[in-house]
């Protein structure tokens, strides 16, 4: 414990006064116990993220876009065959699906998509908008992963629409 010693003094008969002090930690323990109870009660254990998208159609307001974004429209379609990445400048890239999994779900080639999106972003650094067009059979999990890939590539203005 943090104590201190008195400096040596000349007098013989003088008693040294102890500098050790006892701190009452009971109130501190009470306070900490209350804090722990409150924080345990209000703790949020699951970290849930959100992927923000705009929807096209249905009377939705047009997302604000710059002139350059208007000049280049990037569309990513996803369906039974895989991905189709196309731009208004004429670029069209097909990324075929890897097949079907054991549960019958489509296995998308997300790694190839990541690379293509990064290349696209390198070619058009100011481009931030992308439209994801999904078929009805695409699952929510696959859609979320594709949106996540778009965000990873820097295409943060994601719009979602059906085919």
């Amino acid at each position, binding site marked *: 414990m943090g104590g201190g010693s008195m400096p040596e003094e000349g007098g013989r008969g003088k008693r040294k006064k102890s500098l050790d002090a006892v701190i009452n930690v009971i109130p501190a323990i009470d306070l900490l116990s209350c804090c722990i109870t409150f924080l345990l009660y209000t703790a*949020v254990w699951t970290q*849930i*993220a959100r992927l923000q998208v705009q929807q096209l159609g249905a009377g939705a307001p047009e997302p*604000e876009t710059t002139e350059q974004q208007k000049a280049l429209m990037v569309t990513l379609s996803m369906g039974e065959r895989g991905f189709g990445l196309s731009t208004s400048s004429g670029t069209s890239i097909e990324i075929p699906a890897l097949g079907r999994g054991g549960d019958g779900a489509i296995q998308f080639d997300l790694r190839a998509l990541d690379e293509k999106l990064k290349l696209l972003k390198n070619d058009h650094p100011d481009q931030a908008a992308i439209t994801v067009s999904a078929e009805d059979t695409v699952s929510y999990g696959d859609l979320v992963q594709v949106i996540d890939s778009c965000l990873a590539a820097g295409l943060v203005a*994601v719009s979602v629409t059906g085919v």
Partner: protein
Amino acid sequence: MPIVQPGKRPAPRFLRSKVFGGKMMKGRRGVNADLNVVPMVDMMTMLVIFLLQQFSATGEIIFMQKDIKLPEARHGQMIEVAPVVAINATEIAVTGQKVAEISDLESDAGYLNIPALEERLRDEKKRWEFIHQRDPSQKWDGLVNIQADRKVPFRIVKRVMYSCGVAGYFTINFAALDSGAGLAAAVPGASPESG
């Protein structure tokens, strides 16, 4: 009270006093033991720090449900307070109240909207407008959280999105489990509105 022998019973302070040189102890050893509470205080302090790091002022916006397995995402942002549309394999619920069944939606696949969902969301919007009617600084942002099971097909999600749009909710947040290095706060330039 224990039964004690009659005789001198000095106060504990005198009993331990160095002035008497332990004469009062009469050979007895003290039964009081000092408990070292310092490690306990250390542990509690660390617990409080850890729990404070986990603390979220907004609380739990989306509750995990047994029948909804969320997909994982690495680049999501922190979830915001908004109505939650939960979609599992059998039903659609808005903030815990069931509004539609998936089997009914599959049978009338020709329609795109879900009237009960629209009505519920309109009620939520009216409530928001009533609460903020005297607060002109608050602008309607049309934010809605969609919490769907990872296997729910897009044809259902599409109809939910359409109904949200018809009810005035155009900005949609897809909920996902964060698997990245922490959630990014909403920063300007990272949101779809800012382009």
